[in-house]
């Protein structure tokens, strides 16, 4: 590269978290959107912020990107405070935003070629086009792209500068299933290349598919962080034993369904009608996590 090589950073960047947030608070017009949110994203992982609309996901991402001021809390992104970090820091992060490129009348290739001027380390346009599956649309004007194609252009722009950390805010909203699958592969490729990915989504399957860890946001806080398979482990321990008795349904929620069954079967003279034992699926757990908070109780 050129002569502007920097001295090695004082802290080893491989070990410090990519994102460290403590007690993040933000209100709009007196209405709190974020209320003491804590978050840690490790280097190299794909972390999904999952939550319903209005939970504060986008506001969180915008604070981390350094485009929105926070009211309270400590925030470090790649070791710097986004509120005061400069251009050198911005060069290390990538943002996939909802907004369009540089103009409706510009072609996809022209848009990428233009934005290549803003970074010292642009990935070649042809490589980006291939990575997001827009090679065939390279000559198409941005104004004529479909919603899904626009999103893919946004992704190409977000990773153009070869960032260490990429923010994806609801990246697949408005995509058809095929485009979504293709996009997921794109995120997996990014992560495989060592890029840290922080994405927001309100699709459970997307979080389960892509993320190493999922953080559930509700009521302006992070109410749970776990690997997708372990999300809501406590809630999932509770099984529901259900059967018919005296013409109606009986239901017992328990962490020890075997004991309940043993008693039930011992007391029954013959077959227990309609007997079932169920555990909540990922979606049930998620709805419980989110629903509990919306009623004012974080658990």
């Amino acid at each position, binding site marked *: 590269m050129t002569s502007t090589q920097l*001295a090695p950073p004082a802290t*080893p960047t491989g070990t410090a978290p990519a994102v460290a947030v403590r007690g993040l608070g933000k209100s709009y017009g007196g209405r709190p959107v974020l209320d003491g949110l804590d978050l840690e994203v490790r280097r190299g992982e794909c972390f999904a912020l999952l939550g319903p609309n209005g939970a504060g996901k986008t506001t969180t991402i915008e604070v981390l990107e350094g485009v929105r001021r926070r009211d309270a809390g400590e925030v470090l992104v790649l070791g710097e405070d986004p509120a005061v970090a400069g251009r050198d820091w911005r060069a290390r992060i990538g943002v996939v935003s909802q907004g*369009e490129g540089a103009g409706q*009348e510009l072609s996809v290739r022209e848009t990428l070629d233009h934005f290549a001027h*803003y970074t*010292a380390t642009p990935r070649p346009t042809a490589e980006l086009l291939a990575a997001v599956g827009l090679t065939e649309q390279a000559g198409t004007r941005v104004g004529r792209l479909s919603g899904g194609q626009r999103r893919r252009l946004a992704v190409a722009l977000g990773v153009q500068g070869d960032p260490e950390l990429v923010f994806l805010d609801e990246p697949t909203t408005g995509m058809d299933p095929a485009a979504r699958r293709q996009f997921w592969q794109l995120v997996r490729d990014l992560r495989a290349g060592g890029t840290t990915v922080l994405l927001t989504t309100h699709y459970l399957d997307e979080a389960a598919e892509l993320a190493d860890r999922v953080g559930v946001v509700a009521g302006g806080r992070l109410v749970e962080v776990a690997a997708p398979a372990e999300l809501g482990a406590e809630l999932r321990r509770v099984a529901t034993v259900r059967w018919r008795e005296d013409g109606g349904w009986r239901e017992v929620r328990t962490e020890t369904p075997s004991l309940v069954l043993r008693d039930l079967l011992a007391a029954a003279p013959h077959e227990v009608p309609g007997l079932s034992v169920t555990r909540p699926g990922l979606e049930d757990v998620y709805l419980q996590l989110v629903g509990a908070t919306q009623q004012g109780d974080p658990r």
Partner: protein
Amino acid sequence: MTAVLTDRPAPPSTARIALARTALELRLFGRERQQVVFAFAYPVVMMVIFASVLGDEERPGDIPFAQYFLAGIAATGIMLISFQAVGTAIATEREAGQLERLQVLGTPPAAYFAGKAGLVLVSVAAQLALLLPVARYGFDVPMPVDLAHWLTFGWVAALGALAGTVLGVAVSALPGSASSTTTAVSAFAIVLQFFSGVFFGFLELPGWMQQLSALLPLKWLTQGMRSAFLPEQAGAFEVAGGWEHGRTALVLVAWVIIGTVICVRTFRWRRAEG
């Protein structure tokens, strides 16, 4: 997990991005036909209409109407391309989310403004290159008589375009939607033309109108243009009995400074927080 090294080359300079922005603005300008037609056609169409209808009239000092009007409509064209076009373009780009992308890329605002200024300079030059021959060969309007008058024409046009550009950036920070900004800026620009002596002789305007417009740049831009296109003795029919080049430069520079201060204090990449 591999440690990602952070020793990157420094981001491109403001000047390099400004150059890329200028190239982009020119390319987009060429593709947005409405804008091209509006910016280039308006002064020429006005010149043709007014000079054809009122061609026989004369302004004080035996100045043919077309000659007087060319100065005013040239000044108006500069104002439209700088103030009006820049103000509405920035409001529109902000609403479309294009400026958010520039913000997250860490684009220096100066590079963005420079791109706008670059577009204004090129399109002002192109517009004048179209208007002046129409006036010269269509309506026998004499061109500036010597190099000194051409130089006057040059600095007045450049200062006027610069003031218009920074004030366009400043006005784009007005709250409200892009379409409400467009309406407000257009209405203001139309009224200002009448106040500043573009269509009527400035001396024919009521005193309060003269005093009000003397606080704003267009009156001085128009007067400066007259000093380039009209014969020397016509200066006697100005408010001060002369061309007032010093004061013209002073007012325009003052507006450049005021506009720049407003830009620095109010410019934002995003719509106001909800």
